[in-house]
């Protein structure tokens, strides 16, 4: 076969390189932003529509048979609970315009009158009773009503809830979307709540194209005139790829990003047509450690690990600076959190704790599980940090499903986890109460003092006393160091600067019906 002339091969190679470079150089102009020709609503529509981009879709619209974040986001638009979470992460009235504890185990809720479901039927106490009783039979919802002994209809707009003993978490439990109030008629008819979305919320469900978009329109009969949506139509577009979502905002195809890559934030902040909202979260990213496996059952060894980890580096590399370092075993976003007894980055202290533990680091191998690219970057830094103590860390990739099973069964040594809960009590009880070993207590911590404090807090209705108990509990946890706290992420949202009303609380929840065009 005749050999191709050298100049031909070189010409082809140069052409190919030029083509590749040319394609790579194609990027947005510096001044690009939501296009004027597209209009603030993306696509030339008048200002009666807002388009929000999210990376994941809601798998179902059934408010009760689910535990998906995006379903909860959708439910916040279409339904209401008796109470909802305020900006201070405390319960505030929603469908119940007022409520009081008439005894340690009895609560009376006074419902708003004139509230209608989207199908035009009235909401009353029978609907509340039917909803809470149905929730008790559904696996995903029963945890929020398991402390309820009975629900009594006092009159059409008054409900009395009796609990199994004093229950400090009742109000916050009732803020969960899984106990959003449904129509009794729908419950009795056995409708498919995934396709029959009939709530009392500010928006009505219009339609869903799987994998593409969800559409809503304003509920003209919304019971709260101060919070009736200013924008008639809302569309949620599903755009799984982060870069593509950012491009969509810059091009004006969408108006609001529900989630975005932190690496895109500086570029968006430099764009005069985009505003960026930041909110410190009450969540925590941490290394969960199996406290039953030697030598990780040694408190001083765990404290040595915590003191050896450079959290600032992790934040810089993994989160591009969009996080706050955390040293407490409970998130800093709650009022009863404390850093007492907590261990921060201090290599000398780490070596001191290691010496006190009596553990020879050269004999320790620590498999560290990660489930995402971001966690891999975090794990790599931890591996380097602990290497300075002489501890060998091996990185192990797992998908989320496998990881959930592994840590519940205790078949692991250490892994990186991200978690957020609505209350400090829920956080600490879920993760550290010994009754949850084999389920949510992945550290398998079994400390009688922690259990006693949590049990007492659960039945203490006085807020001040309960918070004091929780602060004491967190201080004890910091001393025991069952997990290695790393950071609390900062929630970041980006949106068209023509939009107002953007909000986000410390749990990441937001009331999107507050959005309006300026």
């Amino acid at each position: 076969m005749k050999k191709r002339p050298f100049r031909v091969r070189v010409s082809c190679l140069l052409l190919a390189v030029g083509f590749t470079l040319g394609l790579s150089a194609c990027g947005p102009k510096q001044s690009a932003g939501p296009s004027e020709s597209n209009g603030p609503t993306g696509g030339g529509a008048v200002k009666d529509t807002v388009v929000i981009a999210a990376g994941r879709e809601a798998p179902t619209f059934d408010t009760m048979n689910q535990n998906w974040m995006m379903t909860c986001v959708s439910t916040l638009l279409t339904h209401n609970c008796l109470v909802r979470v305020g900006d201070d992460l405390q319960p505030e009235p929603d469908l119940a315009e007022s409520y009081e504890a008439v005894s340690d185990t009895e609560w009376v809720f006074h419902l708003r009158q004139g509230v209608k479901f989207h199908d035009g039927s009235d909401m009353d106490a029978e609907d509340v009773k039917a909803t809470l009783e149905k929730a008790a039979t559904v696996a995903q919802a029963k945890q929020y009503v398991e402390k309820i002994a009975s629900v009594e209809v006092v009159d059409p707009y008054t409900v009395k809830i009796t609990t199994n003993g004093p229950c400090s978490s009742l109000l916050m439990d009732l803020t969960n979307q899984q106990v959003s109030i449904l129509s009794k008629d729908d419950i009795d008819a056995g409708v498919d709540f995934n396709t029959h979305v009939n709530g009392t919320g500010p928006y009505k469900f219009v339609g869903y194209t799987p994998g593409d978009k969800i559409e809503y329109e304003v509920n003209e009969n919304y019971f709260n005139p101060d919070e009736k949506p200013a924008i008639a139509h809302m569309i949620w577009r599903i755009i799984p790829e982060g870069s593509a979502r950012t491009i969509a905002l810059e091009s004006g195809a969408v108006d609001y990003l529900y989630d975005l890559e932190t690496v895109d934030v500086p570029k968006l902040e430099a764009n005069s047509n985009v505003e960026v909202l930041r909110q410190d979260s009450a969540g925590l990213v941490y290394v969960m450690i199996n406290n039953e496996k030697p030598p990780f059952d040694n408190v001083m060894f765990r404290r040595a690990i915590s003191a050896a980890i450079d959290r600032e580096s992790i934040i810089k590399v993994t989160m591009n600076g969009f996080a706050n370092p955390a040293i407490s075993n409970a998130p800093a976003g709650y009022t009863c959190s404390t850093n007492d007894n907590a261990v921060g980055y201090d290599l000398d202290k780490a070596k001191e704790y290691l010496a006190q533990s009596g553990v020879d680091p050269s004999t320790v191998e620590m498999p560290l599980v990660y489930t995402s690219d971001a966690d891999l970057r975090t794990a790599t830094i931890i591996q380097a940090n602990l290497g300075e103590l002489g501890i060998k860390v091996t990185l192990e990739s797992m998908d989320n499903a496998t990881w959930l099973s592994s840590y519940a069964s205790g078949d692991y040594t250490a892994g990186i986890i991200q978690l957020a809960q609505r209350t400090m009590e829920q956080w600490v009880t879920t993760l550290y109460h010994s009754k949850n070993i084999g389920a949510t207590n992945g550290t398998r911590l079994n400390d009688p003092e922690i259990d006693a404090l949590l049990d007492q807090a659960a039945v203490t209705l006085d807020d001040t006393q309960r918070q004091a108990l929780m602060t004491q509990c967190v201080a004890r946890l910091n001393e025991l160091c069952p997990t290695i706290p790393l950071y609390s992420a900062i929630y970041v949202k980006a949106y068209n600067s023509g939009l107002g009303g953007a909000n986000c609380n410390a749990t990441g929840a937001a009331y999107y019906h507050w959005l309006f065009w300026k």
Partner: protein
Amino acid sequence: MLKYILKRLISLLPVIIGATLIVYLILNMAQGDPARIILGENATPEAIAQLREEMGLNDPVLVRYGRYMLNLVHGDMGTSYRTNAPVSDEIFARLPYTLWLAAASIIICILLALPLGTIAAIKQNSFLDGLCMVLSLLGVSMPSFWLGLLLILLFSLTLGWLPPFGADEWKSVILPAFALAVSSMASVARTTRASMLEVIRQDYIRTARSKGISQGRVIRRHALRNAMIPTMTSIGIQVGFLLSGSVLVETVFSWPGIGRLMITSIQQRDIPTVLGCIIIFAIFFSIVNLIVDLLYGFIDPRMKSQYA
């Protein structure tokens, strides 16, 4: 020919049984409890136990598989663990988009690869030959994910010609189809080139040229059709790869196809949905192979005897 087609369709059954059984066993052996995934990190043992009972997960694996296949015979693909919706609803809502994308991709692939391969063969060892082969290799080397983002940057953000995501209008399919087609192009172009090179060296091509027939007519009327058999085989194989390659493209372009559904279902151990997707892919593959086999007979009448 009808008998041949029926025979091929009936042979689908063992394929579906085999594929679903293997996938079912693998997914059940893999760690990860569907009930725990649905209930999340706050799942209590009691809630998990209740949900497992409701979902029938406590029955033996083969009993569950048998129940699934019995329902399948009646046209019931089961209920998604994740959404509680019928699996058939989930799949058939997305199937048209997957078919649309696959069809557009293969058309673009053919429109690009056939000319590239033919030109490369005719102008063997020339600059054009090298250029065609380098372009096709570029296509297979560039990750479709990366290419997709570049296409969005250029055609959507910079030029504003095409929509960056979704499937709202006919224009929406152009960028994802192109991103998908580019990687398939290389194989088809190279096969076409090799096949054409063999054909244009045949005596009857020399005869046709010596009779004064123009080069274009020689290629079109005499060479191309005879070179198409291996090319058709390559195209048929690429259609199968389009399904697997479409997941990344669907993610970048937010294309509501089956690829993303399958990946999400695997990650969340939504076994009925995974099986449903496998069945659709198996049927799709088999039908594509059948069409390719039938086209052999159309391209080369001597091959029609296999249908007798």
